[in-house]
């Protein structure tokens, strides 16, 4: 490209225009030539600026993925591409686009075994993960580099410093309406459900709050600040998981429904047998 010519022409043109505005008018041919040169210069500038500020477009064309993301792309192209399509753009009726879902979403879905999906149904079930932790990180890196999105903080223990008292309050306001007071999960409409929190790790809970998988709403950092998320995780992992049920066998922490079953199956059955025994002794 002739980058200096239009620059020079522009400055000369401008100056000459200023000068000539007061003296005699230019010839028609020269005016036309000047307009063409100015248009060319403007286009070049705009294109150049765009290239400088938005490098991603070129990166997609010429593979500028990091090494980890390249590994992830290889995994993606064997295990995920069927439903999520080439370059994670999604396949109509099969799987959504993954552009912008972020590494957090990938880590949640793959590390809980929900992805790869066994079959299309109301909701993906938790199952043993197919990929190792390293592979999950690679996949997450690939999706992150494709379209950006929410990411998890570093580390396994994400509730360090969290306050379980405040976490309990936040849990009861934000989480228990679906996951139930004991974190055991609950039913939603049409076969969907809020899963039990017992098998979830800190990173999975954090990722779920950040990305809102399936029917869960997103609790972004403006709804629940990162330290509030740590509080909630502290409540789930320190209080709910470690509560030793001081009252005895907890009947699944399902509330009055199993208590009602227990009073008939244990109480009434035992006492009817006692009545049979007492009345039988005469």
């Amino acid at each position, binding site marked *: 490209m002739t980058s200096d010519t239009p620059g020079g022409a522009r400055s000369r043109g401008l100056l000459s225009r200023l000068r000539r505005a007061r003296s005699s008018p230019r010839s028609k041919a020269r005016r036309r030539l000047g307009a063409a040169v100015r248009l060319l210069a403007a286009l070049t500038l705009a294109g150049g600026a765009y290239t400088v500020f938005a490098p991603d477009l070129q990166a997609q064309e010429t593979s500028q993925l990091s090494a980890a993301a390249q590994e992830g792309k290889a995994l993606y192209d064997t295990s995920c591409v069927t439903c999520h399509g080439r370059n994670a753009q999604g396949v109509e009726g099969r799987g959504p686009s993954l552009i912008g879902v972020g590494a957090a979403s990938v880590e949640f879905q793959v590390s809980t075994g929900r992805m790869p999906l066994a079959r299309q149904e*109301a909701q993906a079930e938790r199952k043993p993960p197919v990929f190792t932790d390293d592979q999950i990180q690679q996949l997450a890196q690939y999706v992150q580099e494709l379209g950006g999105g929410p990411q998890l903080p570093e580390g396994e223990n994400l509730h360090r410093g969290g306050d*379980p*008292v405040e976490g*309990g*309050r936040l849990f*009861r*306001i934000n989480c*228990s*309406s*679906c996951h*139930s*007071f*004991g974190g*055991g*999960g*609950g*039913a*939603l*409409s*049409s*076969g969907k*459900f*809020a899963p039990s929190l017992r098998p979830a790790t800190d990173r999975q809970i954090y990722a779920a709050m950040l990305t809102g998988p399936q029917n869960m709403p997103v609790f972004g950092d403006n709804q629940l600040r990162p330290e509030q998320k740590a509080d909630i995780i502290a*409540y789930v992992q*320190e*209080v*709910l998981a470690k509560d030793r*049920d*001081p*009252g*005895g*066998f*907890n*009947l699944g*922490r*399902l*509330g*009055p*429904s*199993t*208590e*009602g*079953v227990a*009073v*008939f199956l*244990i*109480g*009434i059955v*035992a*006492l*009817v047998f*006692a*009545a*049979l*025994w*007492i*009345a*039988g*002794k*005469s």
Partner: protein
Amino acid sequence: MKRRKLDMAALPGRAAREVDDRLGVNTPLRSLLNKVFPDHWSFLLGEIALFSFIVLLLTGVYLTFFFEPSLTEVTYNGSYAPLRGAHMSAAYASTLDISFDVRGGLIVRQMHHWAALLFMAAIVVHMLRVFLTGAFRKPRELNWMIGYLLFWVGFLAGFTGYSIPDDGLSGTGLRIASAIMLSIPVIGSWITSSIFGGEFPGEIIISRFYIAHVLLIPALLVALISAHLGLVFKQKHTQWPGPGRTNSNVVGERMFPRYAIKQGGFFMIVFGVIALLGGLVQINPIWLFGPYEAAVVSAASQPDWYVMFLDGSTRLMPPWEINIPIGDGYVIPPLFWPTVVLPGILVVLPLAYPFIEARLNKDRRIHNLLQRPRDVPGRTALAAMAVTFWLVLTLSGANDVIADKFFISLNAMTWVGRIGLIILPPLAYYVTYRICLGLQQHDREVLAHGVETGIIRRLPNGKFVEVHQPLGPTDEHGHGTLEYVGWAVPKKMNRLGALGPAIRGFFFPIEKPVEAPVSPGHPPVEPRSERQEVGSGGSR
């Protein structure tokens, strides 16, 4: 002065005479202690409720020592770390203290709650027994009504008790209760604001429910239970028909000592079962529910089991809202039908049932003998229908838990409940009716033809017949002449004593055979040799 000898044997009699001289209680006490009660296991079901109630009173008194019925906001500072520093009502904080800081508080609290569930369960089971055996018939209609009211007063006791700890779950229940009251046309808003002292939740409701729970309702329960038992004494207990039992006598054991000892033992067993449940099985873990806040609701928020049928009826009710265009428009919300109208019908209909049945049967006689459920198939089938109706509603009250734990769609559960509520009760009626008729027919068949002996005889013409043992004298056709008297007909040879003495013992059979009597002319009978295995003769 000469010392008189103290006659120990005469002491109780002398003491009793001294008491009688002053109080004059010998004659009434004698008739009381000599009162005869018939003995059957199903007559002990009501006692489970009575004894649970005693446990409720004992544990409840202990809980009142520590409970603080107030909605004053406090900061918790007890020993349950995950709530320390949280703001809550004094009622909830004191319940936490009972659970974690009061000595024996948790087990007493849990025993109280289990005893409440057991009280209601025993009432229902006892009521079913009374209904199925026709014990509510004249002259006992009033006692049936008192017993039925006891269920609803117990229901109120349970609901107020469930509400006063002011935890997240009980607050949710209270919110629903206020919505139910609000749904009543015209007077709903006035009822709600007078009970809650303004808008829900207000500041007075816990204190009001507390005084209802510890004074008004227990007093009503004690009064109704006393009347219930007094009427049982006055009208005497019903008994099964059988040898020597007529409509005008009572065959059984005297109140003292045997019946009293048995009842004392049964109380210990009921207490023991409640204590075991309270000590081993966690109930109502309020520390996990957290203090009640208006924004807090949990999945699987259910009432206790005896309220759950109303929760179920609400869940099954289609959203039919009635708009009445008067003035600015008036709305009857759908909640009104399943939670006010349905329980209203359920209160009135069973109260009137004894009179309805007597009128339909044109039956004005006095009945002291019970009926076997199979002998009144219509009534038994009606009970099966009612139980099915209740069961569908109760299961629907927990349909979110069932849907979640058994991987069923919640919407499917709702529709199964709606359709099942209409289809299953008539089906249960029909099936139960047929079963009753079948059982009746078998009784008559055994009376006519005798008990199957298991002996197959071959007739000279080659025909095989089973030998039947008639139960009594037979007519010229070989048919038994005994009439059915409304009591169990023996249907096995064991019951006739044909196969030697029945095995004794309850849990473990006492295998030792009875020793044969020794007569002076004969040597003692040899113990019988070990049984040989029965096989075909030629193989050895």
